């Protein structure tokens, strides 16, 4: 089935995730050249460069679209840069889709890359009592606090256990073990996860994802252009949801210290709103999904996402995972790539990387981690400042 709102994915490519100590520009060019080679499209034929910004690499990072266009060799394409925290890559993809569907261009490069600093992320210096990010650190609330509160809520509400969370890590490590683009390619046992130290109860060090360097790129085009170059059967983007939350927030979101008050209007879940819009836009239902790539910033968060994607009823994700259904050979594989557990987060590249994985899976090119007969895939992620996205890819 195709609607006139689909675009085609002609090529995908990555620079492997890791800590390589190089410029984000170098990683991006490697990923872009890989995507170009995969697509068979000549760089001079790309009419639009849609970059996802990185806020950690100075001016070149803030104008990522232009930075990559120059590094690949200025050739007169139109250019754009998007910033939407963890959803930046999806926003860049949405910008490319708009250009293509409006007829302003036929073929576009979507690209995101990051180089991350060593050690833990810290707040900016100085006294800033009006800045929630300063306030929460002042009273002792760090990033793991939020993930741990959500994880503990699962234990309290649904009876999930720390062993369940460890099993998510074991499963994702097994999925990503042979993924050449993953940073961590090592299998773990439940005992090894249980032996890592508690950071924020109930989460251990190995329940929480790292930050990485990495880059991902895609060449996308109109369905007509794909047909013209003999790629009529290329996987297609069927939906890109980048909705904001709806007031009032149901969860305390980083960096806030309180939710909105739901006195005047009811509380709403942001995470579940993201895929809901994607399903609606693509005209597919959760039961059509072959596999999902979700943002496992923590192991427990993967279980929340499974429910937000409506792949099972609320509270039943741990049971689904225990049954083996979310493994690569299961009924509904989740994070076949290995997820953030194996990659670590490279913010502007991550949402694009999720779509790259779905593309390989839908083409049957995922090697050892291939999901049998994958037809429709969905991604989901959420970041700071009310940003998030969900993308549906189909063949």
């Amino acid at each position, binding site marked *: 089935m195709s609607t006139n709102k689909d675009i085609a994915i002609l090529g995908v490519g990555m620079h492997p995730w890791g800590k390589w100590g190089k410029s984000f520009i170098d990683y991006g060019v490697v990923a872009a050249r890989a995507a170009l080679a995969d697509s068979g499209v000549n760089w001079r034929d790309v009419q639009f460069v849609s970059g996802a910004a990185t806020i950690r690499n100075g001016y070149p990072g803030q104008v990522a679209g232009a930075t990559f266009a120059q590094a690949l060799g200025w050739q007169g394409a139109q250019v754009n840069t998007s910033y939407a925290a963890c959803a930046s890559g999806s926003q860049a993809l949405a910008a490319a889709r708009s250009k293509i569907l409006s007829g302003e261009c036929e073929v576009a490069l979507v690209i995101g890359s990051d180089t991350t600093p060593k050690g*833990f992320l*810290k*707040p900016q*210096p100085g*006294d800033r*009592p009006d800045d*929630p990010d*300063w*306030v*929460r*650190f*002042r*009273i*002792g*609330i*760090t990033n*793991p*606090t939020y993930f*741990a*509160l*959500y*994880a*503990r*809520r699962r234990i*309290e*509400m649904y009876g999930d256990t720390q062993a369940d969370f460890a099993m998510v890590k074991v499963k994702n490590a097994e999925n990503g073990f042979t993924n050449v683009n993953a940073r961590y390619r090592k299998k773990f046992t439940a005992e090894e996860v249980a032996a890592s*130290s*508690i*950071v*924020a*109860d*109930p*989460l251990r060090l190995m329940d929480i994802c790292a930050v990485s360097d990495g880059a991902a790129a895609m060449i996308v085009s109109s369905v007509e252009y794909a047909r013209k170059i003999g790629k009529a059967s290329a996987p297609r983007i069927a939906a890109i949801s980048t909705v904001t939350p*709806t*007031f*009032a927030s149901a*969860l*305390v979101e980083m960096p806030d*210290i*309180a*939710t*909105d*008050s*739901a*006195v*005047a*209007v009811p*509380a709403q879940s942001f995470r579940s709103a993201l895929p809901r819009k994607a399903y609606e836009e693509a005209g597919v239902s959760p039961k059509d999904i072959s596999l999902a790539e979700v943002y496992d910033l923590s192991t427990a968060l993967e279980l929340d996402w499974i429910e937000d994607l409506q792949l099972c009823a609320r509270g039943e994700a741990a049971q689904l995972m225990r049954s083996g259904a979310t493994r690569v050979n299961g009924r509904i594989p989740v994070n076949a790539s290995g997820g953030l557990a194996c990659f670590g987060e490279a913010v502007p590249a991550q949402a694009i990387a999720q779509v790259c994985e779905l593309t390989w899976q839908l083409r049957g090119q995922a090697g050892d981690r291939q999901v049998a007969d994958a037809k429709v895939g969905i991604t989901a992620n959420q970041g700071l400042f009310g940003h998030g996205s969900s993308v549906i890819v189909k063949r």
Partner: protein
Amino acid sequence: MSAPVLEGWFTLDAGAPQLLGSRCVACGTYYFPKLKTFCRNPDCAGEKFEEVPLSRTGKIWSFTNAVYQPPEPYVQVAAEDFKPFAIAAVELEKEKMIVLGQVVAGVGVESLKAGLDVELVLEPLSDGKLTWKWKPTGAAK
């Protein structure tokens, strides 16, 4: 009495302190920290707010702890002097909101449970400045 960690964020009534929020005069939505400009309820054009003390009791929604010392601006002590502390997310029934805060010293995650009744108290951080903390008062319901 010692100075607060954040000026104007809570009352300094040692026996029964309260967080200070604001409430939109038009739609009744509460805000913490205080909002004084434009109401964020998408159906409300409110621009007038009154300062209100928030309920000083609530129920635990979820909880965790900080095993390692948080980075600055959290007041730093020598690593060997750092004592892990618990953190609770507490539901305030009247305001229909969840507020984070440390749990009083000496109460660890093993004594916490969702639904547990807590009240707001003041305790100093290691620089002597007072902050709000949640203190269990009874059994989980």
